[in-house]
């Protein structure tokens, strides 16, 4: 089940500092469970970050990324109120999209 991400986007000058936390087991396919069975691969394959609908990051991830990944992105030319949307898709085709508005610098 895909749980919501936690996204923070704050403006620093004309650059939005975007920080994304994702809840995902990111199984490497090498770990064994309590019964000694190998836990199958389960990881986020693609992460897409958009700024007002325009793709700014299109990343392909592997199982080398840690559990509950953190992704930090600087988006140039952002203004307060702009929409930052993040979508991840994993190898079981589960998806999750979350969106935040860029907050003005505090």
């Amino acid at each position: 089940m895909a749980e919501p991400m936690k996204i923070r986007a704050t403006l620093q000058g004309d650059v939005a500092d975007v920080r994304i936390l994702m809840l995902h087991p990111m199984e490497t396919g090498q770990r064994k469970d309590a019964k000694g069975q190998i836990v199958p691969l389960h990881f986020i394959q693609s992460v897409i970050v958009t700024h007002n609908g325009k793709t700014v990051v299109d990343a392909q991830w592997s199982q080398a990324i840690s559990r509950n990944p953190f992704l930090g992105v600087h988006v140039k030319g952002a203004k307060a109120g702009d929409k930052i949307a993040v979508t991840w898709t994993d190898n079981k085709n589960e998806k999750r999209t979350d969106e935040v508005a860029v907050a003005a610098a505090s």
Partner: protein
Amino acid sequence: MLKLRGGIAAIAFICLSSSAHAADPLAAGREALAEDNPGDLWVQVGERLFHEKRGPKKASLEQCDFGLGPGKLEGAYAHLPRYFPDTDKVQDLESRLLTCMMTLQGFSREEAIKYHFGDDDHMSNMESLSAFVASKSNGKKMDVQLSNQKEYDMFKAGEYIFYRRSGPLDFACSTCHTEKGKRVRLQDLPDMNDPQEIRAVVAGWPAYLGTKSRVLTMQARLYECVWQMRMPDLGYLSDMSIALTTYLNHKGNGAVIKAPGVRR
């Protein structure tokens, strides 16, 4: 001469400040992690679970009474553990959650605490819910009252256990936690008799543990402590765990709660 002295003083100052930093090199890592605390993900999951209709009675936990009235969460954790007349027991956050899961949602005890401690294969509902409810007291000061006789008894029992040496290694909590500057490997051990240090402890549970990649509760921390002393396993929500939590939280009164905290 004066100049030289000034120079020596400056060097001494640099040495002092750098050694102060070296004393806790892990603090820098903890601070970096706290800025974007993955524990907040547990809070989000806990919030969803809290409002979700679950269990045989298809009910949410919204009517759960944490001591300030049904559904009143803000600041409730700051007064836990406390005495609850309906169960006639002193209860901490998790035992209270369990009571609500059983009475409101109709879960059996076994079902409700099936994964009371999460692991790599399962996320624990109890840990998520605890993180959520505790986070609702963020910014409040820990204020555990011992106004009820049973609360006072629990506190005294906790104090007794804290200092009671037992087990094959003849350890007590106090063996490691009543002196300044003690450590296990690189970990500084908090001195629970120092108000500053104990406040730092109680302010940040439940906590996200970097080494475990998940949120752990105070119950889990105590379980671990007891295991490290090689004593028999601490029963989940047992009187001993509540007594120790009452003792520690009361001693940590005044701590500004910031849950979930971040630990190694």
